[in-house]
């Protein structure tokens, strides 16, 4: 009985992230528009877009193979599962032992792998550009992320996000330079991974510097819809990770009952809102950089993460 | 001396001697090759019976654990080479490189050489052995020059001069040994008999023995082909008829080394004498490394394998120089394995050079395509000679290297690198010779494959299984070698 209840809560999180993700995307767009003194689309505009796309017919390129057609669903499913395994409103949910931070990173890697292949499938030059650059970015972002995981594990003795969150909420943490560096590194990686400015521009289509959009250029209809949904989920996932690790306040622990969940849910939404706001501000004040500067950007993230880990040794003094 | 054993021993000497005389005078060249084979076969059969009956040692001749294996090896390779020689010489007659008169001479010399080598191995008298080795040298000098080309004459001349100097040095060493022993054993034949020398060596004057050994090492070492005394060897191998190259590398070098071994036993039986080990190790290492580098710049296929023989003689000297039961055993094993393998290589090389009409390696390519049996025979031979398993050479090199490394790591590393460098050169050439598109004549070869593959099979079998009898003999000899 308890197991079924646990699973229900887990399924609840699955639905929650799925429902919240487009809202987050819409929210960030809205804030950005406000910052540019535009009105911007509705908060729920992403839902409308998805709905519209889902109902449209798919136009497949002549050469598209089954990889092209199955990839969207796999990308979506993988990202969704990954997002559902990150502690949002509660830690220690029943499926959370299925994947620690490293596994979650790897799941995102799987999604990216499929996406990059899909970009190559039709055999156009734009798809190739996107895939190639995406993999270059990932090749730097992933190590940075893993080094951050290393720093956290060093501190919390775990890569399990639930455990990390519990530890970070506890009194033993204190203010640490390492953590700040890890946070900055993580933010940089999140920006790169989510194709945000300055690494990529999600709102462009005719720019030779585009990455993510180049890969999905050939997608249409429901395929495009699930890919967009996956992208939103990914943004949510990263904000959730940052939230649960660096702002682990108000997170319920699994099994505390629905009252606790009800209390922690608003905290989660507030965290997302704050994160989204900061992202929008950041994106507004900074300029897009050349593709080959990205490696320096991410290299800095990697260095920060490494420094964070090494500083930890020094500050711990053991 | 009328027991069956001594009869056999005499037969081993008489058969080749009689054959030599017969072959020198019989005119019909069709049967001479067969007679040659028959003579060596009979000698081989007699030699094999030595495993069963062993005569009492006399003052002139002896059969003991030390030489019995080498006698059988000698007659065996002599026999297989004569088989090979049959088909080789037939081709030489066809192409007109040899005339009938020279053929008679060749066969007579071949049997004389067999006689001389058997005598050297059987001799229980240092003087007699010296005479036999010299006889063997002289016959091979004549055979090396048999083609009478500029190169052949020059090679023979070089061989003759260097060999004669070697002879002289070895004789001086022998005289010194006699001097050392006669003051203890008294004058006469006793003072020159192995069996006595080894037993009484502890009483000899060490200083005299030391001096003697220096001369013997250089004298017989010239025959062995140790660098820097090797100069005659590559050219003699390259310019003479290939059966002679096979016998030279396979047997004569061994016989000379065998002579050195006998003296080394005397040395190690005398505690006051200079340890011969360091000298042999030095010469051996120099030979290995030198020959290994020399292999890289060879164009002539036979000369290349001649250098490989120098390398292997170096390995063997090194092993005996290191001493100890393992290294000595390995050295003995290596002598046998090398002689079988190298002669096998020359068998295939001989036919290859005949078929392709050249000894220049740049003009020989893709043998496994054009002549699969010869080509693969060569591949097997080279793979064996560089010490790849599962052959006897791998076993002996394994023992030498592992047993040395624990005692003298630097030496083992130098030796190992030398082997590796040689392997690099030989494999590099093998690549060109055996693989790729075939170049040159594709004419089928009327080769005798039996000797080639018999040798290779024996070497392979030895790598997997050594007969216990052989092992116990070797272990006994290894003990004597100290």
């Amino acid at each position, binding site marked *: 009985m308890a197991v079924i209840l646990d699973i229900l809560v887990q399924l609840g999180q699955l639905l929650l992230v799925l429902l919240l993700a487009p809202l987050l995307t819409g929210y960030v767009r809205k804030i950005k528009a406000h910052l540019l003194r535009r009105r911007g689309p509705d908060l729920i505009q992403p839902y409308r877009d998805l709905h519209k796309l889902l109902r449209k017919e798919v136009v497949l390129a002549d050469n598209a193979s089954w990889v092209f057609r199955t990839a969207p669903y796999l990308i979506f499913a993988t990202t969704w599962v990954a997002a559902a395994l990150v502690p949002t409103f509660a830690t220690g949910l029943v499926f959370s032992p299925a994947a620690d931070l490293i596994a979650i990173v790897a799941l995102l890697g799987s999604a990216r792998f499929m996406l990059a292949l899909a970009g190559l499938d039709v055999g156009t030059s734009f798809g190739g550009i996107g895939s190639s650059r995406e993999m270059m970015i990932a090749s730097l972002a992933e190590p940075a992320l893993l080094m951050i995981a290393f720093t956290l594990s060093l501190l919390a003795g775990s890569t399990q996000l639930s455990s990390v969150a519990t530890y970070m909420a506890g009194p033993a943490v204190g203010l640490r330079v390492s953590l700040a560096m890890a946070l900055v590194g993580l933010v940089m990686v999140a920006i790169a991974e989510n194709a945000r400015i300055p690494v990529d521009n999600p709102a462009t289509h005719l720019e030779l510097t585009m990455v993510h959009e180049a890969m999905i250029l050939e997608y249409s209809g429901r395929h495009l819809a699930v890919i967009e949904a996956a992208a939103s989920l990914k943004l949510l996932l990263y904000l959730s990770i940052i939230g649960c690790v660096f702002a682990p306040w108000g997170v319920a622990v699994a099994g505390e009952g629905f009252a606790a969940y009800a209390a922690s849910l608003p905290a989660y939404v507030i965290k997302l809102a704050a994160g989204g706001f900061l992202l929008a501000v950041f994106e507004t004040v900074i300029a897009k950089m050349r593709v080959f500067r990205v490696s320096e950007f991410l290299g800095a993230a990697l260095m920060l993460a490494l420094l964070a880990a090494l500083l930890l040794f020094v500050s711990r003094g053991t | 001396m009328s027991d069956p054993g001594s009869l056999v021993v005499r037969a081993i000497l008489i058969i080749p001697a009689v054959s030599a005389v017969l072959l020198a005078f019989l005119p019909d060249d069709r049967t001479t090759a067969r007679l040659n084979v028959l003579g060596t076969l009979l000698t081989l059969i007699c030699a094999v019976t030595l495993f069963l009956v062993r005569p009492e040692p006399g003052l002139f001749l002896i059969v003991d654990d030390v030489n019995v294996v080498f006698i059988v090896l000698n007659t065996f390779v002599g026999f297989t080479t004569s088989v090979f020689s049959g088909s080789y010489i037939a081709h030489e007659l066809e192409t007109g490189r040899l005339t009938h008169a020279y053929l008679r001479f060749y066969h007579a010399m071949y049997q004389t050489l067999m006689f001389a080598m058997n005598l050297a191995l059987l001799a229980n008298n240092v003087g007699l052995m010296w005479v036999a080795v010299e006889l063997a040298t002289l016959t091979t000098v004549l055979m090396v020059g048999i083609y009478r080309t500029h190169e052949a004459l020059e090679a023979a001349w070089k061989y003759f001069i260097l060999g004669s*100097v070697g002879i*002289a040095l070895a004789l001086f060493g022998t005289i010194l040994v006699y001097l050392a022993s006669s003051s203890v054993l008294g004058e006469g034949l006793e003072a020159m008999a192995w069996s006595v020398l080894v037993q009484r060596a502890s009483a000899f004057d060490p200083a005299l023995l030391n001096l003697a050994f220096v001369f013997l090492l250089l004298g017989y070492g010239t025959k062995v082909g140790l660098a820097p005394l090797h100069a005659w060897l590559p050219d003699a191998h390259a310019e003479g008829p290939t059966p002679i190259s096979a016998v030279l590398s396979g047997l004569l070098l061994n016989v000379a080394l065998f002579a050195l071994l006998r003296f080394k036993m005397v040395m190690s039986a005398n505690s006051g004498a200079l340890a011969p080990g360091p000298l042999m190790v030095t010469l051996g290492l120099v030979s290995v490394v030198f020959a290994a580098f020399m292999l890289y710049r060879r164009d002539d296929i036979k000369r290349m394998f001649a250098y490989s023989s120098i390398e292997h003689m170096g390995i063997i000297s090194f092993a005996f120089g290191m001493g100890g039961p393992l290294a000595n055993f390995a050295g003995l094993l290596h002598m046998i394995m090398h002689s079988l393998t190298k002669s096998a290589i020359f068998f295939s090389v001989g036919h290859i050079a005949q078929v392709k009409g050249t000894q220049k390696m740049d003009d020989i390519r893709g043998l496994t395509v054009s002549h699969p049996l010869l080509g693969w025979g060569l591949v097997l031979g080279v793979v064996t000679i560089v010490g790849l398993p599962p052959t006897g050479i791998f076993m002996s090199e394994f023992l030498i290297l592992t047993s040395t490394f624990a005692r003298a790591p630097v030496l083992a590393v130098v030796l190992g690198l030398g082997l590796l460098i040689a392997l690099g050169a030989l494999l590099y050439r093998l690549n060109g010779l055996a693989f790729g598109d075939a170049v040159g004549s594709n004419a089928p070869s009327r080769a005798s494959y039996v000797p080639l593959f018999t040798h290779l099979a024996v070497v392979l079998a030895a790598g997997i299984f050594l007969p216990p009898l052989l092992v116990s003999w070797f272990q006994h000899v290894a003990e004597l070698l100290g």
Partner: protein
Amino acid sequence: MDSFALDVAHLFAGSLVLVSFMLLYQDRMFSLLNIFALHAFVVSVSVAWQAHIQNAPHLYITAAIALVVKAIVIPIVLHRIIVRLGIHRNIENVVGIGQTMLGGIGLVALSIMVMLPITTAEGTLVREDLAFALSVILLGLLMMVSRRNAVGQVIGFMSIENGLILAATGAKGMPLVVEISVAFSILIALIVIGIFLFRIRERFDSVDLHALDRFRGERP
């Protein structure tokens, strides 16, 4: 055996070394032959003396062989060859005579040094005889090394053989087999050298080994 006999043997051995030096010193073909004949003669006398004092009549044979073959026949044959080939010019030395002599003295010193620690029952004289024989051998080698001309080298080689005979006869009671083998090898050496010289004459204009060296395998 009295010490006088040994002293005489010693004298002969010493004079052989002296003759070896004379050989080294020569730079004319014919005088080289003559000195070699003298060399062989000294050996022959020395062997005969040994036969006398050791009471070993078979050594007389060796002495006779040395006298007849090496002191008479070979010089004559070589003389003819030289005349026929027209190579009776000066011998080309690799290094100067002076340096060669210096080297020779060094070699003699080396032989004596090497022989010093030897202790035989017969005493010091045998030791010095051996040292002389070794000197003759080393000087012969030096001669082979320092002469460019084939005839010179052959003579150098034969002087080595003479040194060997000296050593062999000095070793008391050494079975006959050794002497015979020495003679035997000399005989064969001569035959073979003759054959080669003949062939070499056939194909080259001189027996100077430089001509041979031109026909080496593998030289580009």
